[in-house]
């Protein structure tokens, strides 16, 4: 058993309001540079929708993640995008790499023209110019071009996850006045079985041992772009200016000093939770070799109980500090993922074992306009699963590799919590219904109360349990502090730039 710690995340989608504050907080700090304008290490997508880059979930095209090969006795995980030999041909031309057109061409406006243009009869305008060429351009797409466009025949209806839905279900999803959607904020999942790391020909990508953050060493990256197609979430971006790839760094310079990453701190809906999980690195690859429907359970089995004395002992033996173990015990992520089992990994069928978990949205029916009256019938207040506005099948494609039972049990528990709290606060639900819901949701009043508290009323210290990291040690291991003193940040002595 090789116990490792992983700084992992939970996004509570019921709370996401789709404001993109996280994306902007990230962009202003990390990707506001030439060559990185188009990158959104954090982005928020509308689901159903095509996402960013367009149709990133289409692995028949992008070939991201792992595939399961071999017979029943000896199953093997292989990269979908390449094997060791054809990776050499793909250095020259990678057929699975998304191009700029799959994201969007970044632009800015000639603001100066608003002031400098000559006096005329028309009001001056700021025309858009491409941030790649510097020339005026027609804007055809942008980040979140399909924002809030559920029901759109060119965006939402092309969502890969709608596959397998009956016409009736689709109709229900996109029915006027009943149309529904959800927001899906995405950052790098900092997977435990990352396919990007495995695909990198130069060995520039690595997973940090002590906190599991996946990083790209810019000194070693040679711009072969294998990681871009290998990452099924398309969370690695090619900087066309420097010729190197970049990705979300989970604001590790902030994390190391005990601060909260930008997208987490700025989250208006307070949907984000950050905490440590302990897991058994030896079992990761095997756990990802089970059939699709068992993957969620299999991933949970790899995550270890931080209260178990034998696990604590093993973790200490493996060099995990007391601070990390304490953080793992207080971790909100452990509660959501393991104790309550209501947070699920996104597209676990890519078999990368993502360490970012989502609490799927319940989307209750709040009311209905009928016969000229807007009514809010109490007995349908939280709807029922059969009338769930986002079909269970659709959610299961996103969060449980098609296993609908898992989604149903999560939904029932989320509903039970609401029934329970409604009955406590408003006393307008009869006790029989509430206890039936609690039974179906497989929860107890104590658990429901705890879920309610961490969901609705958490303090900042409960949402983000960040272990103290010995920053001095980390620095001294990378570079002599005397020498690092003159460097330009993040330990780099040179400013990145395009080669000759």
């Amino acid at each position: 058993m090789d116990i490792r710690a992983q700084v992992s995340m939970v996004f509570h989608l019921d709370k996401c309001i789709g404001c993109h504050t996280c994306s902007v907080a990230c962009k202003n700090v990390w990707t506001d540079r030439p060559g990185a304008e188009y990158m959104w290490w954090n982005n928020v997508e509308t689901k159903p929708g095509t996402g960013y880059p367009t149709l990133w979930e289409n692995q028949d095209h992008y070939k991201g993640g792992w595939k399961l090969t071999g017979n029943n006795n000896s199953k093997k995980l292989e990269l979908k995008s390449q094997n060791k030999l054809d990776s050499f041909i793909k250095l020259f031309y990678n057929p699975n790499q998304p191009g700029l057109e799959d994201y969007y061409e970044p632009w800015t406006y000639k603001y100066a023209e608003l002031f400098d243009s000559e006096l005329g009869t028309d009001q001056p305008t700021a025309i858009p110019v491409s941030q790649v060429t510097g020339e005026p351009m027609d804007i055809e797409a942008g980040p979140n071009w399909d924002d809030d466009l559920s029901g759109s025949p060119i965006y939402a209806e092309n969502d890969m996850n709608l596959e397998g839905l009956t016409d009736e279900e689709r109709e229900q999803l996109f029915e006027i006045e009943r149309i529904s959607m959800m927001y899906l904020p995405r950052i790098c999942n900092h997977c435990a079985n990352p396919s990007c790391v495995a695909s990198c020909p130069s060995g520039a990508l690595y997973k940090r041992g002590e906190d599991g953050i996946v990083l790209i060493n810019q000194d070693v990256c040679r711009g072969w772009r294998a990681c871009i197609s290998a990452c099924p979430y398309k969370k690695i971006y090619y900087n066309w200016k420097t010729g190197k790839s970049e990705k979300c760094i989970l604001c590790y310079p902030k994390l190391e000093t005990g601060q909260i990453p930008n997208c987490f701190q700025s989250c208006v809906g307070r949907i984000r939770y950050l905490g440590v999980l302990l897991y058994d690195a030896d079992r990761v690859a095997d756990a990802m070799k089970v059939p699709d429907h068992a993957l969620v359970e299999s991933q949970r089995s790899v995550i270890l109980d931080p209260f178990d004395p034998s696990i604590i002992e093993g973790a200490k033996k493996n060099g995990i500090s007391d601070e990390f173990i304490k953080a793992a015990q207080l971790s909100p992520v452990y509660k959501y993922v393991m104790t309550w089992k209501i947070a699920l990994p996104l597209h676990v069928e890519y078999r990368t074992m993502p360490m970012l978990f989502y609490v799927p949205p319940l989307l209750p029916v709040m009311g209905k306009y009928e016969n000229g009256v807007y009514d809010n019938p109490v007995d349908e207040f939280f709807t029922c699963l059969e009338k769930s506005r986002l079909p269970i099948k659709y959610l299961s494609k996103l969060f449980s590799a098609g296993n609908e039972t898992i989604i149903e049990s999560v939904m029932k528990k989320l509903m039970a919590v609401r029934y329970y709290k409604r009955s406590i606060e408003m006393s307008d639900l009869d006790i029989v219904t509430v206890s039936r819901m609690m039974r179906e949701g497989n929860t107890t009043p104590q658990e429901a109360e705890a879920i309610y508290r961490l969901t609705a009323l958490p303090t900042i210290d409960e949402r983000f349990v960040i272990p103290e990291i010995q920053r001095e040690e980390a620095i001294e291991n990378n570079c002599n502090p005397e020498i690092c003193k003159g460097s330009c940040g993040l330990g780099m002595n040179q400013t990145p730039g395009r080669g000759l």
Partner: protein
Amino acid sequence: MIDTLLFVALPYLALFVGIFGSIYRIRTAPLTYSSLSSQFLENKGLMWGSLPWHIGITIILAAHIIAFLFPGLWQSIVSHQQVLYAMESIGLCLSILCLLGLLVLGLRRLTSPKLQAVTTTMDLVIILLLLLQVGLGAAIAVHCKWGSAWCSGTTTPYVWSIITFQPDVSYISEMPLLVKAHIVGAWLFILAIPFSRLIHMFAVPVEYLFRPPQNVVWTNSRKLESQDQAFVKEEARRHFLWAFSGIALGGFLLSVGTFRNVFSFFFGPRLERKVETELMETRLSRLESTVGQRKLELERQASNYILVGKLTDLNASNGKYFIDFSMQPAIAFKGKDEMPLLISAKCTHLGCTVGNKVDDKGRILCPCHVSYFDIVSGEPNAEAPAKAPLPHLGWVIMDEKGSVLARRDSKGKSQGSVSAEQRESARVYIAKNQEETT
């Protein structure tokens, strides 16, 4: 003068700058060391440009390198006519493929506005240089045919003369202008590597074939211990890889040698009938002489006496070599008593043949490990590596008619004598069976 400048000065400048410049750039500016792929900005054109170009040039460059590094192997391959035809036509096709790829690459650089944002002057210079270079190569393949054959007498020795620091322009000074330009282009290409995107060819990720899929890096000092272990493991692996690559290289060279022989056995040039006949005749005459030698030996062993020489031919200071019955060398001297002195010439140390000149101390020298043997006693000198004395041989003196005049056995017991008149005609023999003759 211009030849020296272009074919001696330029190559050394190019090699020096190319090698050390690249090392310097890779070590000091790794952030600029990248393939600088532009696939992200332009996709279709890259496929039709990059793939043909890279595939074509990789094979062509590999062929050039093999031809220069293993001229023997190369020659044995191309000396077969069909192979030569195939080689030349494949080369020409690949160079055309490269040219087309380069043209596409150049055109997309010039036409796509997005690409111009990442195009430097150097990129265009490089495309132009490569177009010229590959174009020249293709032109050579057309106008100066069979380059893969004639290179072994001209450009290959020239390249070797540069590499071995004995530059010799004479190999190529008479070459056509096309070839000279191609050679200059090659040196310019090497010169441009550290100053352009060409440096990405050193980034070929061979290590990807050997590394495990996941890559975990610890920065926490608590993990230093495991890091040390990993380092030791890595070192062990590195040494293994070195050893392995050494063995592999050795095996490769061996197989290259073997392959060359096997190849030329099956596909090598066939001999003309006349030359083949001559060869067989030489072989026959050698066999005949061996047979004659054998017959002589047999005859010698069958006869009772072997002639050493005439008694008057023997000399006190300059011995006469002869071969005894056991086919070993021996030397005959004239002793102090005017009688023959026969001593074995097979050194008792390691069996070298001892010299026949007697020095002023009455010794003969075995040149192999400097043993002096006294010819009278046969004893070696004290410092000599040989410890046993050289044995003496018995002899028989007979006159012309074959009647025995005198004899001495190997122990030194003599009988009979030779008178002054008989001396002229006396001949010295060694007898087959000493006991019998005594």
